[in-house]
């Protein structure tokens, strides 16, 4: 494995960790959402790296898919937040435990 690859992978891991911690710790729904996007970005980065390392386009293909999904997610997710905000006046994640049994 070449050096630059490990650098990129390290960057991917760091980004993923930042995203994961953000998802777990932050209370603002939008920030959580951003953190999810960061995680997705980290994964995309890893895909690109491996794609290059393996000299195959499959990884890139996955990246395109993930970006499309991420876009859709962002659209729906933000819409949900807007609605939630309108209904409850807040988007603090701790206020929403509607999924409880």
């Amino acid at each position, binding site marked *: 494995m070449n050096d630059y690859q490990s650098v990129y992978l390290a960057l991917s891991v760091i980004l993923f960790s930042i995203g*994961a911690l953000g*998802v*777990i710790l932050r209370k603002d729904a939008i920030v959580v959402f951003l953190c999810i996007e960061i995680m997705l970005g980290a994964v995309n980065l890893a895909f690109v790296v491996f794609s290059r390392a393996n000299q195959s386009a499959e990884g890139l293909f996955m990246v395109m898919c993930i970006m499309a999904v991420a876009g859709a997610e962002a659209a729906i997710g933000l819409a949900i937040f807007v609605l939630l905000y309108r209904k409850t006046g807040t988007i603090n*994640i*701790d206020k*929403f*435990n*509607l*999924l409880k*049994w």
Partner: protein
Amino acid sequence: MKFDLVWLIPIFPLAGVLINGLLGRRIEQKNKSLVHWIACGAVGLSFVVTLGLFFKLLGLPADKRLYDFAWFPWISSGVFHVGVGYQIDPLSMFMCMFVTGVGFLIHVYSIGYMWHDEGSYSRYFTYLNLFMFSMITLVLADNFLLMFLGWEGVGLCSYLLISYWFSDLANAVAGKKAFVTNRVGDFFFAVGILLLLVHLGAHGIWSLNFSVVFAHANLLSPHLVTIICLLFFLGCTAKSAQIPLYIWLPDAMAGPTPVSALIHAATMVTAGVYFIARCNVLYSMSPFAMEVVATVGALSALLAASIAVTQNDIKKVLAYSTVSQLGYMFLGLGVGAFAAGLFHVLTHAFFKALLFMGAGCVIHGMGGEQDMRNMGGLRKRMPVTFYTMMIATLAVIGFPGFAGFFSKDGILWETFSGAHGSYILWLIAVLTAAMTAFYMFRLIFMTFFNECRASEEVQKHIHEAPKTMTVPLMVLAALSIFGGYIGVPESLGGSNLVERFLRPVFGLGKDKLLQSAGGPGLIHRAVSETAAHQSFSTEIQLMFLTAMMVLAGIFAAYMLYMKKRSVPETLAANNPSFYRLLLNKWYVDELYEKVFINPLRSISFFLWKGIDVVVIDGMVNSTAAFFMKCGSAWKASQSGYVQRYAVSFLVGVFVLIAYYMYVR
């Protein structure tokens, strides 16, 4: 008339049931009298057919008098085949004759009795016809199971008719009591039939047909026969109101009086006697069972007579008298005097039906009053009723020359002298005869003599019954006098036609009986046939003795209820506990309630509230609750906060990665 037409006998009343049952209410609205024309006509036709067949049977030589008409198969499966078929032999014809004959008279009598009743006229006659159908099936059936159909059918009709005036809860309760008590008897009866079937089946005879069963009865072991006979007899004690299952009959007087006359005096209650007579082959094989029958019969006769002495309800007196007379019949059967027992069935049907119908006239005339303490002096107001009832009373107490005398004497003589007889039983029977005379004349004196104790209001309306009611009374009165002369014993110069007629049926049983007479027994004396037929003079002396006892009974009643009318009350007052014991019928009802019914009811409540709801359903629900608890324990982990889920998700991922990196 061909024997194959025997199916017409039950089918006429059945047609009556269908017509009156389905269209009765419409017929009743248009033309009320059509209802009884149909009902009485149906029974009348049955009687005519029976007569025809009877005379045809008489025309045959004695050993050819058996015809089995197999109509159609009923239940057929595997080895078990039962058909609907009717048997014509002297016994079934004998029964069928008076069942349809007396039944017809009571149907006619019912017209007058029920005409003004508020209840449904057609319903009444439907039930009555259904009863006739069942009773005819019972006596004509050629196999045990079809007889059982009739057996339960008459029980059902009895239930329906006792609770005919169902708006009064007491009547409904009495009806239910009758049915359930009979069902208890039927339990033993059914077990007996099934045992018989299965054990004969073990010898390859899979049949319930009477003639087949009796022909192969020798295959059964004596113990088994005894068990079966006792089971059958228990069934008969329910149907024929003997100890221990007689308790329903007095309560059954809640039904309309013609019903009491037909079902609870003349016909249905004699079904047990008929059945044991039918099974004489089996009973003859078991001396022990015979002894039980005789003893129970004698004790029932005594017990019922003792209760009858204190009763004040006119119908209750007659009811206990019925139990008592049925006891005589069983005594007769038990000592091997099958023909004498059946002869008593016949004469009893005449005079007891007459007594009930007379009582019905009295009740009818008094506007529903049944308490004898409120009657009296009716002799002048209701002459026909008085004279006919007087005849019946003389017949029932066995006054010389009346029907009951000859039949009762047959039983008493056989008890005294027969191979299976016993002096103790004979003494009981004679004592009972005296008591019978006492309470029957007590009834007559209280009802018809002295001054009238009814209220002014009632007195004004006392009237003789209409023609439809009195004519049957007169017919039966004639039969109560002359009916006995068909069975005049040889000692009195008669030829005992009844016994000769029935001999083909009982011949086989008699033979067996003589074989077993030398066998072990508790109270019967082993006497040979020749010795048993002692000189006629002994028989005549005994008759005289019995007649004296009867006269003594009459005299006692005359003294107590005509001359010194204060004595009964002082007697009762001086012996309060004994009087109470008799008045409350030896507390047998209360005993049964305490010992059987109440515990069973408590058990059923315990089973429901204790076992079913708490234990069984509790186990089911606690199984469910257990899984519910498990779920509750876990549900705390489902907090609903996305971030906690994310944490557990991450932890899970790390665990998996760690597992695959380090463990595998």
